[in-house]
């Protein structure tokens, strides 16, 4: 649906993006990952045409993106902001009008979203009286008010407590089911594991990783296994070497073992089950957090 092709961008003092390309499918959730200052926000701002790229192009459904397309994007920047002196309703009307909504559509849509996010009708509340979590919700509503097909969220879960973060997550999944495309950037990797179909990682202004979330995990697994068992294991075997063992409770241990080269997990299973009863046996799949830290360390933290 959205293609970013060879984007480069330099600011007055430094290079923010260096030849970055990504492809995003319709009806999916795309995670844009990277440490602070990597260039995520610059990329998002370029997609939104808030700033212009030096080189490269953005295509929406195969054709170059134009200003009318941008207006249809639902964009929530990392730095949240509302007009403190306005009423919630006036603010939503203002934002809706900027997105081309009529007054009535604005009101209907806002009511719907008040329900979705489990808030009472805040239409006449002053924004300055809202708590932080409440204003985050208003911000989110103002982003999706005009029912955008493409939603871009910069760090969407910062500022939400776990309950409300889950509420937003379930709404994002619902939007995806409805066929919307969602791009979000984050450092919070657990939300990536839960939500993202696809991720791209940016570090030092370059894309360093890109692909389907599950495939990436498979690619970066290290052939380690987590085994829960009832007798201590030997340190080493010709099938494995023990990485660490933890005593969970009386006579129950959890061990991480590394499979020896050219051995299969069946051989490992047989070898261990000869000595001890296996309670559980699973391959250690890295989560995005591990991969993120690994890749960032590999590439060196931006100077």
């Amino acid at each position, binding site marked *: 649906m959205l293609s970013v092709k060879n984007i480069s961008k330099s600011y*007055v003092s430094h290079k923010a993006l260096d030849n970055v390309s990504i492809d995003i499918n319709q009806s999916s959730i795309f995670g844009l990952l990277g440490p602070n200052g990597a260039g995520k926000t610059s990329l998002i*701002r370029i997609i*939104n*045409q*808030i*700033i*212009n*790229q*030096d080189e490269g192009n953005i295509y929406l459904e195969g054709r170059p993106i134009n*200003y009318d397309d*941008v*207006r249809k*994007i639902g*964009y*929530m*920047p990392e*730095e*949240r*902001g*509302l*007009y*403190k*002196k*306005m009423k919630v309703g*006036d603010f939503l009307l*203002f*934002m809706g*009008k*900027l*997105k081309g909504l009529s007054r009535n559509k604005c009101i209907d849509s806002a009511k719907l979203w008040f329900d979705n996010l489990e808030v009472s009708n805040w239409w006449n509340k002053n924004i300055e009286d809202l708590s932080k979590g409440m204003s985050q919700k208003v*911000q989110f509503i*103002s*982003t999706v008010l005009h029912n955008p097909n493409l939603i871009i969220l910069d760090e969407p879960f910062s500022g939400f407590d776990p309950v409300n973060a889950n509420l937003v997550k379930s709404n994002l999944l619902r939007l995806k089911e409805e066929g919307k495309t969602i791009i979000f950037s984050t450092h919070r990797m657990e939300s990536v594991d839960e939500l993202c179909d696809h991720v791209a990682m940016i570090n030092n202004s370059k894309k360093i990783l890109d692909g389907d979330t599950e495939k990436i995990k498979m690619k970066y697994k290290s052939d380690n296994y987590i085994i829960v068992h009832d007798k201590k294991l030997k340190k080493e075997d010709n099938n494995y070497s023990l990485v660490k063992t933890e005593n969970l409770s009386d006579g129950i241990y959890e061990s991480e073992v590394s499979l020896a080269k050219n051995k299969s997990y069946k051989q490992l299973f047989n070898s261990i089950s000869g000595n001890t009863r296996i309670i559980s046996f699973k391959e250690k799949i890295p989560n995005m957090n591990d991969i993120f830290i690994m890749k960032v360390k590999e590439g060196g933290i931006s100077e």
Partner: protein
Amino acid sequence: MNKIWIIFEREYLQRVKKKSFILSTLLTPLIFPFFIFITILLIDSDEQELRRIAVIDKSNLLQDSLSIGNNNLFKSEKDLNSLQSQILDGEIYGTLIIPEMDIYNPKPINFYSKNIPSNDFVSDLERIFEERIRNRKISELQLDKSSLDKLKTNILMDTYSVEGSTVSEGGELDVNKSSSGLAFGLGYFNGFLIYMFVFIYGSFILQSVLDEKTSKVVEVIVSSVKPIQLMMGKVLGVGAVAFTQISIWIVLVFSISTFTSIYFGIDNVETTQIVNTQEQIDQSKEMVAGFYDLFSSVDVFELVVIFLIYFTGGFFLYGAFFAAIGSAVDNLQDASQFTLPISLPIIASLMFMGVILENPESNASLFLSLFPFTSPILMMARLPFGVPDWQLILSIFLLILFVIFSLWFAGRIYRVGILTTGSKITYKLLWKWFVIKNY
């Protein structure tokens, strides 16, 4: 265009709905009449109390006791030392000592009091004793008082402007009476009003842009609106608020003054108790008459239209720069180093205003009333003295040209500035922002 309108609408409605705006708009025109009223009341109440003044008269200028206004002068044989305690007790207001003197070479007379007497009081007493000495001279020199009175001449010069004059049927030139004093006042008032508005509303724009930047709301907005549209909507919105306020003021002032002049009538001026000599009454009557004369000579409609043109032009010219500054800095403290150079031409205009009003025809006046950074204030100051059409048109044309330029210039800084936080803003950096092609 539609989006500029949405931005404009929000900015405008948010501001005009504020209580502070409504109060200041409705009350400010009443403040001046109110102050005048209070002053009259104070002076009135002041007059009630009689002030006794002891006079130690060594030249025998004062025959007996004398009352002027609420001051009662009486002769005293005591000396200053003994009168001093009476002054401090408040028993008498003060002591006047007239030394022995040669009336052809008079010495200063001295007044001792607890408080410093008013200027009027001093000049009143000076005038009285000057007259006493004059009378004594007349009798000593055996001059004829009635022929001396005939020597007194009082010439008034009436000034007329031939600008816009017509020749009446009888072949006589029908000209407008002009008054340089009142032109001076009117010019000063107009110039000052524009100065005030440019400053106050310019800082509103700065504040508003800065608020959007610091509250981070700006990024959401510029994802739907181009920065230049946002800036234009904002400048227009704040400008419309200023325009609304000044229009309400003009209407209020005109209706209040019309109402008062109909209700009280011009003649009633003399009943106010500020004036207490016939001469002063005449003067003030003349002034008021002159004022109305002048107003009838000035085409009020034309004046208001030109005022609004310069008002709008000056506002946009400076408002654009204030918007650019607001977008560049991160807080109000940082803004001051940039607002100062922008404010200099405005402040300088106010300083030049005196010179312009003294010499409205000079080359310097011409230049300053054409130069767009000073023309909104200084052309308005010159206007009551009569300005040739070509100068007025050239001045407005230049102003419009510079308004377009300043909006363009500010827009280029604004587009970068509103999204940039945390960098130390220097003129060099602003220049880089200005010239950067892609942002």
